[in-house]
């Protein structure tokens, strides 16, 4: 091959174009390789979803839960929720008949969670065992296990697809999770990783409940106001089998207020507030 200097102008031009072409293809291939390496696995997406649902260092929120029975009658509860990592303390403030009842969820070192219930009239704290966690919380369509927003400990991702800017995850309960569902599908926004929809199947594999999350708003961090966390302020759970529905509305939320680990103790369950 002739050296470049000895090439005629048109030959130099062709070589130049070939080089550009090769370079472009090479860059594209390189980018592809890199993006493949950077693409998230299903479990990673699920992890991110969980993190998106529990942003910041800690969260304090006041929520209204409206439970609508199939006949249209409705009950309303108000709860205060404190969250830090995998820990959660929830205290019912309304209605008066249940005010003071509190639930504490603590992650276990070996995996899984332990759940404690405080009944103020009996001055007693009892641990709720795993099998009881699949029961509806105060008769709502959210089971105790739904409220903990803990997914990676409970589900394996068996399939993931992408569509319309969302990840679609097919989830199967882990063998020891003790869930009342036989499976679930979850749609999560690719940008925020916040779930937008989840469908849960019963033990027969029939569609059981549908959860939709909407009205996402950004709430600032108390310790770093420059930082904000997108949060769905409306979560709706529809029980397809019974026709009942439960809606959780976020009335107030504060992030990063500096809740201590001591706050999330059985001892603190008996206290009135943070």
């Amino acid at each position, binding site marked *: 091959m002739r050296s470049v200097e000895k090439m005629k102008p048109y030959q130099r031009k062709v070589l130049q174009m070939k080089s550009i072409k090769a370079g472009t293809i090479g860059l594209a291939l390189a980018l592809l390789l890199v993006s493949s390496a950077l693409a998230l696995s299903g479990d990673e997406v699920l992890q991110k979803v969980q993190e998106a649902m529990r942003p910041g260092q800690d969260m304090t929120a006041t929520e209204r839960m409206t439970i609508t029975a199939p006949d249209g009658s409705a009950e309303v509860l108000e709860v205060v929720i404190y969250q830090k990592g995998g820990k959660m303390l929830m205290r019912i403030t309304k209605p008066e008949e249940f005010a003071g009842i509190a639930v504490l969820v603590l992650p276990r070192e070996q995996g899984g969670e332990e759940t404690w219930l405080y009944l103020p009239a009996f001055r007693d704290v*009892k641990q709720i065992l795993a099998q009881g966690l699949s029961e509806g919380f105060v008769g709502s369509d959210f089971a105790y296990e739904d409220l903990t927003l803990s997914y990676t400990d409970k589900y394996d991702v068996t399939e993931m697809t992408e569509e319309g800017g969302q990840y679609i995850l097919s989830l199967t309960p882990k063998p020891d999770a003790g869930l009342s569902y036989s499976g679930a599908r979850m749609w999560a926004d690719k940008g925020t990783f916040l779930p937008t929809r989840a469908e849960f199947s019963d033990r027969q594999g029939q569609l059981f409940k549908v959860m939709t999350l909407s009205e996402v708003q950004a709430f600032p961090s108390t310790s770093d106001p420059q930082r904000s966390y997108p949060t769905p302020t409306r979560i709706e759970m529809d029980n397809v089998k019974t026709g009942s529905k439960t809606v959780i509305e976020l009335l107030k939320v504060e992030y990063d207020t500096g809740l201590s680990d001591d706050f999330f103790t059985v001892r603190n369950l008996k206290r009135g507030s943070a």
Partner: protein
Amino acid sequence: MGRLTEFVLRWRVPLLVAVLVATVFLGAAVMKVKLNADFSTYLSQDSPLVQEFNRVGQVFKSNYVGMVLIRTDDIFTTENLALIDRLTQAYEGVKGVDSVTSLSNAVDFQRAGGGLMVGKLLEGKPLPSTPEALEKFKRYVLSKEMYVGALVNAKGTTAVILVRLGQKVSHFKVAGRIDRVTQQIAPGSKDIYYGGMPFLIYSMTGLIIDNMFFLVPLIILLLVGVLELGFRRLGGVLAPLTVVLLAVVWTVGVLALLGRPLDLLTGIVPVILIAMGAADGIHFMRRFYEARAAGSARREAIGVTMREMGTPIVFTSITTIIGFASLAISDFDIIRTFGWATSLGIFLALVATLIVIPAGLSFGKERARVQSRDDGKPRSARGGSRVMAGLGGLIYRRPGGIALLTVGLIALAAVGIPRIVMNVDWTLCLAQGSKPYLAEMLLRREFGGSLPLLVSVKGDIKDPATLETMLATERYLDTLPDVSEAQSIASILAEMNWTLNDRFAIPANRAQVNNLWFLLKGQDVLDQMVRSDNREALVQAKVASLGTAVIGQVVAETDSFLSRLPAKLIVVDGAQAPPAARQALSQLQLEQIKAALTQDLEAKGVSIRPGLLEPALQAGENWSPNEEDYAALRKAITGYLLSPFSEVPFEDQAKAAGVADSITTALRGQGTLLTTSELEALLRPQIQTPYPQDVTSLAESLAYHARGFLNARRVEFAYAQLTKQLPAEARSDGDLAKKLRGDLWGLTSSVLALSPKQYESLQAQYGLVAARTVALAAQPSGLAPVLDQMEKELLPTQIESTLLALLAIMILLILVFHSLRAGLLGIVPVALTILVNFSILGYFGIGLDSFTAMIASITIGLGIDYAIHFTHRFRREFERSGDERAALIKTLQTTGVAILINSFSVGAGFAVLLLAGGQHIRLLGGLTAVALLVSALFTLIVLPALTLLWKPRYLQAPVTERTLRPEGETKQI
């Protein structure tokens, strides 16, 4: 009749075409007729009790609970538990099913591993698979009263899956779906049975269909056989057969057009119409053939028959209609509908007889028939003529003797009638030996029965005083023989209190009720027992029998108990009462506890001698802690302070023990329990904490738990005294022990609910002040009181119905025969038949119920025909011959034979019902068949005897040349 004959013969073609069109139209409607075996719709929907039944069923979804029973050698095997689980899940997915409860998903609350589990027995967990796990599960389940007798029998061999159906669904369809699902999961299983109302409806519907498709062809065959035997002519078979088939199609078609479904009784209307509707046709054809044999031309014979038989046929139809129409005053909708449907059928059969038969007969050869040797009588009847002649002669010679025999028969009946039993079992609706019947027997034997007894309690359900009343009601119901499995939200809360706090008692205050209620929220059991606004709740129990006497007794006793409950309770706190009142309050409290203990012991069959309970109660009342109790309390307080639950953390055991010691010392010195503020004052100097409110909180907890601890010691002490008096088997009964301890827990409370009378008396004496007033109202509900009321009203209603029918018919007869004596005599045979029928019930122990009581009305309607025909013919023959004996013999030989043929054919038709599924229908069929034959015999023997003795006007008139009429000539009535 002459005009009608003319009309029919002139317009025979258009009339027959009209009949054909009507038949096609109504026949098409028949194809769309629906079936209804739903018992609850058989009742009078106007009755307040029925309306209450429907209301309670709607609110609590309690009316339609089906039971799937699985019978095995041992339910507690992995295989059988898996079957129950699979069936439960499958039934939950069946359209029309509201909820399913079984050993798989029954609500379970238990302490396990230091924690609390409120969940399901098996659902969501792996099934026990090792012998140890299965044995453990079996012991656990069989130790719980809320499961034994409700979801599994005491031996653990039969399990029940309770399936609640929705209100506005077709229970027949849903029951069918459940059956199909069962067949898919457990194909061909012989050990699965269905009980309860929805499945009863399913079986009954099948029964209605079976009855119709089996019995109707059978009775048609029977009728054809009888007609052939009686007439030996095609016309004699076809004419009556056509009439009854038309009547059946038209009647069922009308029912379909009116939207009335066929039920258990109207389902047999076709059979009854075929049996009865042929009678007029038989009489018509008999007279027609007589006229033809006498030489009349076809049309002439039709005219003669219409003139002579038309009026009696009309009147006998009217009387039969009256008999069935009298059922219209029944309280049972099913019986009312049966009454008017059958009346309609008879009317349509009459129309068919007077139009279709003469129109049809008018076609054919007009030439006069040569008189044959047999005078139109079948050959088989010639022998019968001789017998009748002999009978006639005997009656003529010995009317007085026959009358005396009749008196003797009445006396015999009078002995049998008082033996009639009112206790009839509604299970007789089922075919004995059928699977539904076996299911019902299984439910009675192993699960306390299938008939729910409900008590609706209205008031503030969450108030402990209301809950105590409900628990007391459960206790009372459990003491009643034939009643078991009493349960309500009260005992469920007591059970939860037992699980959480070791006391089977209603929570002490509303806050505690609310806390336990929280754990039940969302569970089906709450929806099934408490109305959504918490202002009404049900106490449920089961009655072991569907027998009316048992139901009546249970309802009466429940009514009596509930009527003694006050309409309001005045709650007082003895601790706040004037000292002088405390003794009286304490005494009342001990009486209440004693009553509770007595009932709990009685429910377990433990009889106690008077004075046995008082020493234990007094000992419990007077108990005070000793050194051992204080030492145990100190240890418990120390343990609490060192636990993660303590509001203030204690890491130093010695410090915790020191605080505990100070508390027990103070208690010992004070002699009474410390209040929260007293405890707080004791704790504050000993505890250093940056959170002063924690000390307050700790004091509250310690006050509560110390009180609870010492109360438990008091109860144990009293219980120990009590058990010394009890027999060994009572002491070893864990469930009884739990309940007795729960009753004794009353010793620890100073709060008491008084009746207004008690309160007023104490207020007047001691100036007592009420803490609060609780209004409540309790009444029985459910199917049991409905059935009881229906059966109570049954006898008076039926007597009323029977007398009404007899009166109406007597008046008719008087008008027809222009003779009071003839009218009175006319009802004698049916009146005697009714007496004989009831005496059969008494002598053979057949119960009197809604079905067997109907026989009186049916007998009047059918039996009176015989008297009308007989009297009419006898009178005419006497007018012809002037000779009583000859007239009697002639009547017996002609109309008498027809009456016997009729009684056999109609009786045979009813006897076909002996092959029906459902014992009630069989009894109805068999007894009616006997009644018809008896009525015929009374008509042929007793009626003429009494007529000859008493001589109505037509027999008294002097016989002259003018009144004597030659054979064949008739007199218009």
